[in-house]
């Protein structure tokens, strides 16, 4: 069954409720169950799959759309509302958008992760807008005593051409509220050619306010009597608080409270031990940290060092196979008999998310109730963690979502929310804003875990890939990988060749890990597309041609673990497109420059990318990047879509080029701020050219899938320019 059909089949269970808006007007609330397949296996949903849309039309014609999901810079507050507004057929200038509070009963799932907002909402949001339009049209038909089919709409007005009459939506909104809502599965939707808002560039709904410096982010929350807090945790991951001497810190200027907090000893699932300092000004609270005298037990972190991890990975690879994750055919025999056999090791480091807005959260605990203002990607999970860790039941919590100054997966974790709640509970009645320093943010991230791969490939006499193996060394308890440290058994060339084996070994870690933009893919793509480039060179071809040969005829290759199937035709489409836009076969005229290619399929998006880079004196310069993308039939907001792709490209280049690597000595993070964990800066920004390849599939998300291919496209370009193969990130070339 197709995606659209699955959604439609479930529509009968949709709860669509119309009511009269206070002050007159139509309020329409839709609670829509979602098919499990729409959910992303890469970011498992913590709450039942349901989706709610809320739209109202006031008597003055103002359309208010409630945005239920967190806005973290991915643009959903604007793009999901565009879907409703277009089918409602109103003018975008009539639209107001209100941020929903966190309320699972009312809004279903509220999350930002896995590039899922577009595929999950594409039909339901449009259907809700169309239902509201149908009710307004019906109300006008009743008033004019004509058949509703004789009426047309445009820009928030209803027209009866035969008699030249027209009225605004607001004039019939109250009457519409008394009608029975239509069946969502039968309400007619626009043809794409009829869209007046979807597919047109729309400026972000909050942009103008942000440019004036208005308070809109979590850290901008201001309440009467607000105090500011820092939370000092153990220097090493996994450390426990033994004894805290807080007397000197208490006497520090501006300090109001110093509160040692014993957590549950596991930052992964709740609350790390720490000492909170609460002051009248954040800087004063932070200054007082140096006056704390705390004994920490960091024994659990002994030998959790980057050098030890590397040695263990070497040993695991030397020891051989690991646990089998996927076995197709007989790769061992085929490798043994292959005319040509190559192997290589690849690795990549832990890296941090480092969103520009440091982790923060504001809370007030009063009379057994907690009120929270949070920039969170997964607020409903936060409620569950508050319950488990502090015993505060979800129905005793009011949780306001604020705009987040970047997410990248970091705010899928709610550790800062639990911390501020623990502090607020210890200082009842007082609103507390916890703000992490950048050093706190870098050291106590849920890092993209490092990983190691040993690949082997067998190549036939005609340059065909006969067999492929990957032994992956990662982190975990021996049975389950650490968070975001798992493998993807569908990773190409799986499903495209007959003889293939993927296996895995694990080592434990006390370091907290978690999903970073395009989790899994951001690392696996570098390693696998890098090695496949080596295969292509050994086979006497190049990577795009090798990939095209592997893809074969257009078909759907099923994937294990309920992952989305892989459409080889869509993959072919973007590869051929980027070969064309980048003039792939033409070598750059300038000496020292070359192009590199990579492809990946992640988060339902098909992306092929080419990087043109030059190397001089050990310095890599990226000159141009070409992206070809297939995310379905429709780009919802071209202005936002283009920005997501550019941002992902620059993010990936930064991971490879700026020296990003988090290292540990006995569980202590060695990096601390943007001087030793650098981000991309404007001078390194290349020209980026994006080509959208439209397919007839429903639109999918763009927060993530543009990132993975740019890294191997760059490292493959460096090889083409210099002959030096980059098998380890970040790129570090000798300066001569």
């Amino acid at each position, binding site marked *: 069954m197709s995606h659209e059909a699955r959604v439609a089949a479930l529509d009968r269970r949709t709860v669509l409720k119309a009511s009269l808006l206070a002050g007159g007007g139509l309020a329409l609330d839709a609670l829509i169950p979602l098919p499990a397949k729409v959910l992303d296996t890469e970011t498992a949903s913590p709450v039942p799959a349901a989706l709610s849309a809320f739209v109202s039309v006031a008597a003055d014609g103002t359309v208010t759309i409630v945005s239920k999901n967190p806005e*973290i*810079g*991915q*643009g959903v507050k604007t793009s999901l509302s565009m879907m409703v507004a277009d089918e409602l057929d109103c003018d975008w200038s009539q639209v107001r958008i209100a941020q929903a509070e966190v309320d699972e009963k009312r809004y279903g799932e509220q999350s930002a992760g896995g590039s899922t907002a577009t595929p999950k909402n594409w039909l339901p949001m449009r259907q809700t807008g169309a239902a509201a339009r149908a009710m307004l049209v019906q109300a006008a038909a009743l008033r004019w005593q004509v058949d509703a089919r004789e009426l047309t709409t445009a820009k928030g007005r209803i027209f009866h051409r035969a008699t030249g009459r027209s009225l605004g939506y607001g004039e019939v909104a109250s009457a519409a509220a008394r009608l029975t809502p239509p069946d969502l599965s039968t309400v007619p939707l626009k043809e794409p050619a009829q869209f007046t808002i979807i597919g047109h*560039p729309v*400026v*972000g709904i*909050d*942009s*103008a306010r*942000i*440019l*004036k*410096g*208005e*308070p*809109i*982010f979590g*850290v*901008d929350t*201001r309440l009467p009597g607000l105090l*500011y807090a820092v939370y000092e945790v153990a220097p090493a991951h996994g450390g426990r608080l033994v004894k805290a001497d807080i007397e000197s810190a208490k006497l520090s*200027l501006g300090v109001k409270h110093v509160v040692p907090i014993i957590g549950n000893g596991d930052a992964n699932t709740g609350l790390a031990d720490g000492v909170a300092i609460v002051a009248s*000004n*954040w*800087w*004063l609270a932070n200054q007082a940290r140096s006056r704390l005298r705390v004994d920490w037990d960091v024994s659990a972190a002994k030998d959790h060092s980057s050098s030890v991890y590397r040695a263990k990975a070497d040993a695991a690879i030397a020891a051989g196979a690991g646990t089998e994750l996927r076995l197709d055919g007989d790769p061992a025999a085929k490798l043994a008999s292959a005319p040509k056999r190559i192997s290589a090791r690849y690795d990549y480091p832990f890296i941090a998310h480092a*969103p*520009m*807005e*440091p982790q923060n959260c504001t809370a007030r605990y009063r009379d057994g109730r907690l009120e929270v203002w949070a920039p969170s990607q997964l607020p409903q999970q936060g409620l569950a963690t508050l319950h488990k860790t502090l015993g505060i039941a979800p129905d005793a919590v009011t949780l306001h979502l604020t*705009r*987040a*100054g*970047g*997410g*990248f997966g970091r705010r899928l974790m709610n550790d800062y929310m639990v911390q501020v709640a623990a502090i607020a509970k210890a200082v009842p009645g007082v609103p507390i804003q916890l*703000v992490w320093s*950048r050093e706190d943010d870098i050291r106590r991230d849920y890092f993209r875990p490092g990983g190691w791969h040993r690949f082997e490939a067998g190549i036939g006499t005609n340059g065909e890939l006969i067999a492929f193996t990957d032994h992956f060394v990662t982190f975990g308890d021996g049975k389950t990988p650490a968070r975001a440290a798992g493998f993807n058994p569908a990773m190409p060339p799986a499903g495209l060749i007959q003889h293939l084996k993927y296996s895995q070994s694990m080592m434990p870690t006390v370091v907290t890990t978690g999903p970073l933009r395009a989790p899994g893919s951001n690392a696996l793509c570098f390693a696998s597309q890098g090695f496949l480039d080596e295969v292509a060179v050994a086979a006497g071809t190049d990577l795009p041609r090798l990939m095209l040969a592997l893809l074969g005829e257009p078909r759907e290759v099923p994937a294990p673990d309920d992952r989305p199937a892989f459409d080889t035709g869509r993959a072919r489409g973007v590869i051929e497109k980027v070969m064309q836009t980048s003039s792939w076969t033409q070598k750059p005229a300038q000496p020292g420059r070359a192009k590199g290619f990579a492809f990946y399929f992640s988060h339902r998006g098909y992306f092929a990318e080419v990087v043109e880079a030059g190397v001089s004196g050990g310095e890599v310069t990226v000159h141009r990047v070409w992206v070809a993308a297939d995310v379905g039939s429709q780009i919802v907001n*071209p*202005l936002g879509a*283009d*920005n*997501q792709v*550019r*941002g*992902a*490209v*620059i993010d990936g280049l930064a991971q490879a080029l700026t020296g990003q690597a988090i290292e540990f000595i006995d569980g202590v993070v060695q990096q601390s*701020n*943007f*001087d030793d964990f650098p*981000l*991309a*800066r*404007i*001078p390194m*920004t290349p*020209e*980026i050219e994006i080509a959208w390849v439209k397919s007839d599939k429903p639109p999918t998300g763009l927060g993530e899938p543009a990132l993975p291919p740019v890294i191997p496209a760059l490292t493959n370009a460096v090889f083409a320019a210099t002959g030096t193969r980059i098998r380890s990130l970040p790129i570090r070339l000798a300066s001569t």
Partner: protein
Amino acid sequence: MPYRLDINGTIRKVDVPPDMPLLWVLRDELGLVGTKFGCGKGLCGACTVHVNGAAQRSCQLTVGSIGYAKIHTIEHIGETALGARLQQAWLEIDVMQCGYCQAGQIMSACALLAQTAQPSTAQINSAMAGNLCRCGCYNRIRSAIRIAAGIEEETGRVA
């Protein structure tokens, strides 16, 4: 220590230690939260303000060192012709993604155009290199500065 600070054309009185950075005076004493905290070490530019018209990192500027200098923040920048032009250019191509760094970007861009009305790409890169954008909106930052400066794009406008 009591201080009288000239902020956005108004004298504001605060009582804070002399080594408190201006950033925390603005945010936690005066409620001017448009100026953002990003790193605390002058590495990211999110806290950029104008001190007598020059772009400075307010996290590195102690209140005791300010004296009679005129401070301007993002909350005020739209009152100036150049600031309003930059805000308009930023909106025209919707530069931002998360938007957290954009106040600092605008303040740096404003100081650049006040000095150099028609900056080259190299001058833009140099003036804006201290302002991080984690979302990677750099192509559009360059374009918006060119739009505000009335410079024709070499390769067409972004998006």
